[in-house]
């Protein structure tokens, strides 16, 4: 049995206020798996990142190792050991 990659999840300052930390060590081969690993540790994080139907909130941006992912690429993106997954507020409007 292979262990899922270890990933560091980083959160923006406004979410640090809500969940008490901005760095969570998670495991997951994909971003949904990594987020689920984070929700297992901090249940109250889930409602800040996901809608009631399980979709990522519309203005949540996922950045892996400094590269922002297009929304349609988030679910299929493969994570590797040592990756950094940064959650950011998507720039939208002006």
């Amino acid at each position, binding site marked *: 049995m292979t262990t899922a990659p270890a990933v560091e999840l980083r959160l923006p300052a406004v*979410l640090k206020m809500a969940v008490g930390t901005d760095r969570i060590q998670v495991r997951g081969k994909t971003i949904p798996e990594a987020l689920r690993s984070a929700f297992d540790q901090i249940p*109250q994080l889930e409602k800040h990142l996901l809608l009631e139907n399980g979709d990522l909130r519309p203005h949540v941006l996922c950045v892996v190792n400094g590269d922002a992912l297009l929304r349609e690429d988030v679910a299929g993106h493969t994570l590797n050991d040592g990756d950094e997954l940064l959650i950011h507020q998507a720039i939208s409007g002006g």
Partner: protein
Amino acid sequence: MAKRVILSVGTKRGLFLLESTKQRKKWKVSGPHLKGWSIPYAIIDTRGTPKLHASATHYSFGSTAYTADIAGKKFTAAIKPPEYPDLNRKAAKFVKEYGLPNPKQIWIITPGHESQKKTLFAGTSPAGLFRTDDNGKNWEPVEAMNKHRTRKDWNPGAGGQALHSLQVDLDDPSRMYVAISAAGAFRTEDGGAKWKPINTAVADYVGARKESTVGTCVHKLLIHPSTPGLLYQQNHVGVYRSEDYGTTWIRIDKGLPYDFGFGLAVHPTDPTACYVLPLEPQEYSFRATDGALNVYRSTAKGWKKLSRGLPQKNAHVSVLRQAMDSDLMDPCGIYFGTAGGTVFASSDDGTTWSPAAEYLPPIYSVTAAVVE
């Protein structure tokens, strides 16, 4: 320790705390606290060691409820915040047809009865009632309210379908009142197991209702803090007073320039005195003052205009429903915050006014607390 007054001011961009001595002449402003969050409502619970409670929403990351010390130094989010009931079918249809946003937020947090010091209640949009018995760490739905038999007939107002007013009887912890836009007012006599609509004689566009059905658009409902059974409400259509725990309502807005408004406050000892801030009415959907910013106080002889210190020219000001409050001092302090970011304060029962803070972000709520 000497008494001091703290105003919790929720704004579009964070929470501000305004503190003054009991004279309430000069105000020290701190904030923004909870930077990055919008604060629809904040209140200091003065039972026991005073605690600050704030609702918070974020454009990207949803909403939660925070607690803190009253200096605002350390905020802790709820472990299990109020979760919203699903939009009812009618509300969803309205949103779809008219393109209104679905502002999922906590509209009000109210401390429970003095005898239940860890209990608080919260009202949300879509309209929901929640309860915590551990000082805001974990919130549970009050199902008898949220699944009320009349729910299919609750309409969302322009600000969403919101449970925005929440009052716990001072004498009897099992008696509570809530008000929902646009469903009307409800009362429980058994701690929340059963809720009865209390809208008899409250008007809607087609006139006053003979029976206590739902559908009226209450904007704010308050109990009087020292007179059992006395309630006031500012409605979309009129201002009302009830002397029988909300069972029947008496319309009292004759003499006001407009019957429309959002803000409402009560005098802590004078049962004849409520304070309103009339706004230009529905006809133009203007919802701001007509050039002069005036507060009105009800008296046994009618309404008294309170304008000293308030702008009287070119003042087109909006004041939201949670942005007006009174303190429990003698003389009474009355406070309101504007959408333009000014907090006006009076420390003499509303006779004279001056700005307590200016140039804040748009103000959503103002609540006053007296602490030692």
